[in-house]
Structure formats: structure tokens, C-alpha cells
């Protein structure tokens, strides 16, 4: 369609909306934001007549690539180290995608201007596309990759594992609470505009380096829809900025959304990229380097900072702090170590790191070996069953962490852990900002003004609480992470499939008791707890030299 006829067509379809006089659409989802003074925004011109064929064309390319990958035996050169992490990633991501579809009516309800409703409606269809195309990719992996275990239980594992819960915030956060907080600031202004770059651009390129060119095909196709979504979100943000009364809420929501996205997305994607790859070329960008480019330069400097002139208060401090955590505090490495510690309750296998990996880590993150090297050596030593328990239950100088009540990633930068009694319960937080999220942001009042529509943190937020005091074999059985012989575990701390004796079974983990750090913390006396927390914060958690 020519530009001129596109403009005309777009103008025509804006005639479809009207001012209702008999009844107005139900307000199912409230917001504390106001849009009375919002200027009309001219959104991207999106017309379904050209949208459907354009997307169908994209799909045809994706499906063509899938056929080609199977015919070309792609899986003969795919790295298992990489593919195993996809069991986690692809269990998580279809839910945030479909949640983005579900979030669209919340934004439509909240923002009165019909000019932008059309773009949000198209986004709803896109997100149904993204969710189902990703489920289909996973199905292909399950059918063609050597080890389908873990892919086969995918959505159940997502629903009952500790890491599914971490990922689920990136999804539940889109569809609950204040409609603008959720569907605009958290979903679009932060998750889509900032973090889809690491999700859908950085990660696929790492996949390709590990022999998997299907992930890039699917995710680049997904990403090509994002610029429209980003534009939808930007229009709403500018409209919100037009009203002074919204400024405080915007400041709150940007702090919460930025920090939560950092905690959750950097934990997951950082681990997939740094610990899922076999590509250890020195000129291969580290996650920190990619983050610096995609998030710090492209998002923070080129997108967020220019919004300051419209009166937006930017969380400069939190951007710098996130960078500090990623680069100086080794956030991603601590998360990867935690995932590997927790391997018996995962639903994928984690490859031990080798000298080649060590060298690369040290080059990219100076000081890495002193903090993590010996632990990974122990991980490798303890990888087979028979003579030892899983590493979490052997004494390797690693103290199992407390979990952050807000972001649900454990409190891994230990000196930053905040402990407080909130709503009658002792809670731990990974950082001051996560403590603020629970204690200040998600409350019915914010800085003296009522925020009746703000959401709430709910649910059984510490996963370990569900299994406190239980036998590890029973826990894994209950989770269902057992292979179809009824005894071999889905998760393994290695990739050796050559000898069944190297595979851990339920018998190898029976008799081990699993405890909840939060339950134990709440059982302590004040003095015990204070001593415990001080020791926790002071413990560098480094495996001593043998």
C-alpha cells in the first residue's frame, strides 16, 4: 500500500469509534492515573488489511526455516549445554507473551483516546502469535533434540518450580494491579522497550553460535513486532506525562518496573547466555557488554533520558546500581551458581564449566575465579551419583541463600540483603529497592496519596516453604521431574548420556531433608536472627581451596 493510501485508509478506520451515550465500557480494571488532560497522540498507522498478510509472510519464513532445520539435521551440531537451558527459557516465555495479549484491554480501559486503541488491539493479536509460535518451537525441540525430558513437562514445570515463579512475575506483572502500572510501565515502557533486546536479540545470536538457528528465526520474527508495541507504550507514556498528578506514580512505577525487570530478566537471560554457551572466543561479547550496549546505551541513554524534558523522573541511581550488580558484583554468576546448586529440583541438565570457560570468565569478569572457580571444580567433581550427594548437600562452603520476597531471585549479593518484619512475617529482600517494592510501592497509599488500584504481592512467595522438612526424593516425585522409567531424574548436573550409571535416580537423593530458609528464619529468636543475618551478610560464600 502506498504511503498516501495508507494514511487515507488509517484516517478512515479512525471513523469507526464513537462517543457512547447509552452506556460506557465496563471498567474492569482500575488505575490511579488520570488522562483528562491527555493530548491526542498520533500512533503508528496500523491497518489489519496489510497486517495479516505481512505477518503471514513472516510466518511462512519461520515455518520454512523449521522444515529446513529438520531436513538439514540441525540438531547434529546443536550444543546440548545450550539446548538444556531452553527447557527453562521456553517453559517461561509463552506465558509473558500471552499475558501481554491479556494486558491490552487494561490499557484500552484506562486510556480514553480511541486513537491508540487500534494499535493496542493489533498488539493483542501479535502476542497470541508470539505465545503459540514459541510453544511450537519448543514442541519441535522436544521432537528432534536428543533429550526431550524436561521439554515434555514444560508448562507443568513452569507452574511448580522455583524458577517458574521467578519468571512468572514477567507476565503476572503485566495483568494485575493498576492498569497503567501493569500494562504500560511494567510491560511496555520497561519490559518491551528495554529488555526484549536481551531476550529476543542478544540471546538468539548466542543460540546461533551454539548451532541453533531456529531460535533466532523465531525470535527475530517476534522482535520485529516489538517496535509497534514500543510505540504504543510511548504514546501512552507521553499522555500520562501531560498530567502533573501522574508524575509521582510514574516515578514509583519506573523504579519498581526497572528494578524488577533487572532482577528477573538479567538473572535468567544472563545465565542462559554466559553459562549456556560453548562459544568462548575472546571477542564474543559478554552479557555485561551486551547489556551495556542494548540496555544502558540504547535504552537508558537514548530512550529514557530524553524523557526527562517532559518531566519524567528517571531512576538514574537504579540504572547505575543494576550495572554495578551485573559487572562488579557478579550478579549473573551468582544466579548461575544458584541454579546449579539447585539442580535436583530443576527440569534440565547443567553442564559443568571447564578450564576453557574459566579462562573466558576471568577475562571478561576479572576476579571470577576467586569467587566461583573452586565451586565449579567441586560441581564437576560431584557430578555423578554413587559416592556423594548432590552438591547442595555436600560441604563445599556454599550456604544456601535466602530468597527475595519481592523479585524471588535469592539474596545473592549477600551484603545487600535486607531483613524486615512486614505484615507480621520476617522477610528477606535482595536489595533496598526490592524491600521498598513490598513495603512502600505495592500498598494502598503512596507518599500520602491514596493508590486504591495498586496491586498486591500475593501467593506463597518462598518456594521452599512448600517443601520444608520433606525428603528430596519425595519432593522431586511430587514435582514430577522424573523420567519415564519412573526413577531416573530429569535434571542432571552433567551432560553424560553415554552410561546410565552416571544418571542420578530417586534412590540417589532419598534420605536428604530439604528446608526452607524463611521458615527457619521465622523460628529464630531475635538474637539468633540478628546473629544469623549478620553472619549471612558477612559470608563471602567462597569454596575454600582443597
Amino acid at each position, binding site marked *: 500500500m502506498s504511503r498516501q493510501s495508507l494514511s487515507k*485508509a488509517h484516517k478512515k*478506520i479512525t471513523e469507526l469509534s*464513537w*462517543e457512547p*451515550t447509552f452506556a460506557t465500557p*465496563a471498567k474492569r480494571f482500575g488505575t490511579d492515573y488520570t488522562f483528562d488532560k491527555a493530548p491526542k497522540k498520533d500512533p503508528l498507522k496500523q*491497518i*489489519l488489511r496489510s497486517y*495479516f498478510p505481512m*505477518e503471514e509472510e513472516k510466518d511462512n519464513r519461520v515455518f520454512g526455516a523449521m522444515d529446513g532445520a529438520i531436513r538439514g539435521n540441525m*540438531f*547434529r*551440531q*546443536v550444543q546440548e549445554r545450550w539446548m538444556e537451558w531452553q527447557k527453562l527459557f521456553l517453559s517461561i516465555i509463552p*506465558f509473558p507473551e*500471552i499475558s501481554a495479549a*491479556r*494486558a491490552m*484491554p487494561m490499557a*484500552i480501559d484506562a486510556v480514553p483516546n480511541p486513537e491508540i486503541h487500534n494499535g493496542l488491539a493489533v498488539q*493483542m493479536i501479535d502476542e*497470541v502469535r508470539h*505465545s*503459540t509460535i514459541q510453544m*511450537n518451537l519448543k*514442541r519441535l525441540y*522436544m521432537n*528432534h*533434540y*536428543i*533429550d*526431550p*525430558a524436561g521439554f515434555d513437562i*514444560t*508448562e*507443568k514445570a513452569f*507452574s511448580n518450580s522455583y524458577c517458574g515463579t521467578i519468571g*512468572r512475575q514477567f507476565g*503476572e506483572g503485566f495483568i494485575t*494491579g493498576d492498569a497503567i502500572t501493569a500494562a504500560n510501565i511494567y510491560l511496555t515502557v520497561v519490559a518491551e*522497550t528495554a529488555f526484549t533486546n536481551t531476550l529476543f536479540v542478544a540471546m538468539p545470536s548466542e543460540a546461533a553460535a551454539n548451532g541453533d538457528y531456529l531460535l533466532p528465526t523465531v525470535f527475530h520474527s517476534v*522482535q520485529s513486532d516489538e*517496535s509497534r508495541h514500543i510505540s504504543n507504550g510511548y504514546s501512552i507514556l507521553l499522555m500520562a506525562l501531560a498530567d502533573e498528578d501522574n508524575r509521582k506514580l510514574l516515578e514509583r512505577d519506573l523504579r519498581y518496573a526497572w528494578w524488577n525487570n533487572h532482577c528477573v530478566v538479567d538473572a535468567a537471560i544472563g545465565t542462559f547466555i554466559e553459562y549456556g554457551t560453548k*562459544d568462548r*572466543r575472546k571477542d564474543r561479547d559478554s552479557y555485561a557488554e551486551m547489556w551495556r550496549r542494548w540496555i544502558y546505551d*540504547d*535504552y537508558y541513554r537514548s530512550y529514557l533520558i530524553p524523557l526527562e524534558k517532559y518531566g519524567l523522573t528517571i531512576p538514574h541511581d537504579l540504572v547505575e546500581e543494576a550495572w554495578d550488580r551485573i559487572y562488579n558484583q557478579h550478579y549473573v554468576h551468582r544466579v548461575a551458581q544458584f541454579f546449579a546448586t539447585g539442580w535436583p529440583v530443576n527440569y534440565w541438565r547443567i553442564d559443568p564449566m571447564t578450564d576453557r570457560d574459566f579462562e573466558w570468565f576471568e577475562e571478561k569478569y576479572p576476579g571470577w575465579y576467586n569467587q566461583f572457580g573452586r565451586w565449579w571444580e567441586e560441581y564437576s567433581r560431584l557430578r555423578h551419583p554413587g559416592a556423594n550427594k548432590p552438591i547442595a548437600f555436600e560441604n563445599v562452603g556454599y550456604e544456601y541463600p535466602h530468597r527475595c520476597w519481592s523479585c524471588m531471585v535469592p539474596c545473592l549479593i549477600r551484603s545487600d540483603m535486607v531483613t524486615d518484619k512486614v505484615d507480621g512475617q520476617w522477610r528477606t529482600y535482595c536489595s533496598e529497592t526490592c524491600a521498598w517494592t513490598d513495603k512502600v510501592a505495592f500498598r494502598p497509599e503512596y507518599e500520602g496519596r491514596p493508590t*486504591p*488500584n495498586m*496491586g*498486591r504481592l*500475593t*501467593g506463597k*512467595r518462598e518456594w521452599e516453604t*512448600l517443601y520444608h522438612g520433606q525428603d528430596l526424593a519425595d519432593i522431586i516425585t511430587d514435582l514430577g521431574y522424573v*523420567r519415564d522409567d519412573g*526413577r*531416573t531424574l530429569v535434571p542432571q548436573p552433567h551432560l553424560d*548420556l553415554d552410561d*546410565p550409571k552416571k544418571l542420578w535416580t530417586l534412590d540417589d537423593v532419598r534420605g536428604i531433608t530439604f528446608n526452607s530458609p524463611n521458615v527457619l528464619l521465622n523460628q529464630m529468636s531475635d538474637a539468633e536472627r540478628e546473629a544469623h543475618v549478620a553472619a549471612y551478610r558477612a559470608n563471602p560464600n567462597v569454596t575454600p581451596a582443597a
Partner: protein
Amino acid sequence: MASAETTPQRTFPQLEFTGAEAGLREFPGSRSRAYNYFTPQKLRATMYEDVTFDVQPDPERHLSQGWIYGFADGPGGYPKDWTLLKSSDWHRFLDPNEEWEQTIYRNNSSVVRQIQLNLENARKADAYAGWSSGWVTFVERNLGAWMHAEHGLGMHVFLSEQRSAPTNMINNAIAVNSAHKLRFAQDLALYNLDLSESDIAFDGGVHKRTWQQDPVWQGVRENVERLTAIGDWAESLFAANVVFESLVGVLFRSHLVMQISARNGDYVTPTLVGAGEHDYDRDLRYTRALFRLLTGDETYGAANRDVLQGWLDKWVPSSVRAAHELQPIWSQPQDRVVTFADSWAHAVSGFRGLLSDLDLSEPKGLAQ
């Protein structure tokens, strides 16, 4: 925001033979190549089931920690009390159309391609030149007004409902329904644009006034606006797809426009409106499947039928009134092929058939 960037002198990753292909080794779990956490309807799961089932978690299935974010006044996620209807197992509903990514784009693309081709041919063949002025008026006003109804349903009824149902199966089916409505409304609007750019005297702006002010259309507009105001997702789905569509949508599209266009020398309009009818056939299929499941529920069937019967009492009168207020447009075209009474009889008989499929009885006020 991403842009491709190349640095000179880059090295490239080495690919190696890894043997990570299915079947190259046997070990526990090596043959477990089907999603194992839900029971498919048939022996093997369909593609549709695989890509849809359990993507929206449920504390009653596998979601062990529950929903971790809530609303100020209640739980987050997809509370089952967002409708009065109850089910022994909401997850039993499967969309008979098996809509997912590929079907959505294939179907809608083929519709828009077909329509564009038809409009192009019509332009070339000067197909509108032979229209009588009465027919031009009919199309510019009535088909023009109708596109608002389609848009309103797509944007503020179905799109809104797909946030709220307890399973992914239901919400995706409704999302596709919304996409159909929005596309069809745009098809009609762009057709209206084509007509106003053609050589005939066609007023491309009068549709707004007709919809907002013409007394014959106010019943329809009121019905549509009231549908958008319903809070219970299943009630609005039922009141829209079962009641309004049967008594007003099908009445206007199938039993009026599709019947009379050709006799008025118009071969173009039926191809567009026919596509809308085809969409509705698909959308009615999932709607019927869903409400049948609910009225036939072994535990809650009787209670659900009571609720639905109440919704019929509440919504049928609005749609009956909207339909009857439209009656004057039956006499606008020069060539009157059908009478309102005939069209209405057809619509009512379709509605009765649907009610009997759903095991519901005829509400008062239908026999008007």
C-alpha cells in the same frame, strides 16, 4: 531499538558435530516426545492443544505457589468468580476451530486478499455505476452504520473478555473472535472509502450520523453500548454471540444484506458481508461448544442454565427491540426481495435452534 552492527575483523563461532539429534542414543526418557502434563481429547494431542494448553496456569492444576501478584481488591490471575457460571473443569473446553498462530494469519490473510481482489475488480469493471440511488443510500447509511457495531463488539466486548476467562483455551478463542470483528469493521470502512472515491455519488461521512442519530439505528447502538458495559465476561460473550448476533447480526447480514444486494445490482457487498458471516459461523462454533459444556456440566449444569435463562430474559428484549426498530430499512431499497417478517422469522428460527442446542428454553418476548 535493536540495530544490527558489525565490527570489522570479527571471528566466528565454530560449529562442531555434537550428535544432539533425536534417536542417536537410547537412555531413560529418550523417547518421551509428547507434552505429558495434560490429557489430550483424542489419543494424540493436536498441534492446537500442544501450543495452547496450560500456558495460562491455574492453581487448580499445577500452579503450586498460587498467583504471586494480585489486585487491590482480590486475587490476580484469572479468578473463577469473574463470571457467575461455574464449571467442574473449565479446561475441558477446546476451541473446535483450533485457532493458533498459523490459522489466525492464514484465514484472515486469505479474507483480506480476496476482498482486495474483489474491490480491485469492481473498480476496473465500474461495478458501482449501475447502482440505483436508493441502493447507494442503503449502503452508505446502513452498511455504514453497521460497521460501528462490528467495531464496538471487537474493541470493547471481545477484546476485553479475553483478559478474564479461566483458561487459555477460552481466552484465545475470544481473542480470535475480537480480531475477526475488528478486521471485518475495517473491511467495511475501507470499502466505504473505496465507494466514496468512486465515480458514483456516495457520501462517505453519513455513516456516522446514521449510527449516532438515525432513530432506526439507535436500538442497535444502545444494545451494543450496553454489551460493552457488562462486567461478567461470560455474560457479555453470551449476550453478544448468542443473543445479539442471532437476533440482530445475522438478521442484518444474512437475512437482509446477503438477500437483497444482488437483486439491486450489487455483486460486491455480498462478498464482504459473506466474509463477516463466515467469521461469525466460526465464532458461533466455539461459543456453542463453550456454553454447551456449561449447560451440560454434571455438577453445575442446572445452575448454569438458570443463570443463562436469566441472561436471556435480560438481553433478548434489547435485541428484539433493536431488530424491530431496524424494520424501516427493509423498505428503503428499490428492489424489495424480502420482507422484515420473513427475515425476522429466519433469524428467530436460527436463534431457537441455538437455544435448543444449549438446552435453554425460549424467553418471553421473543414471539413479538
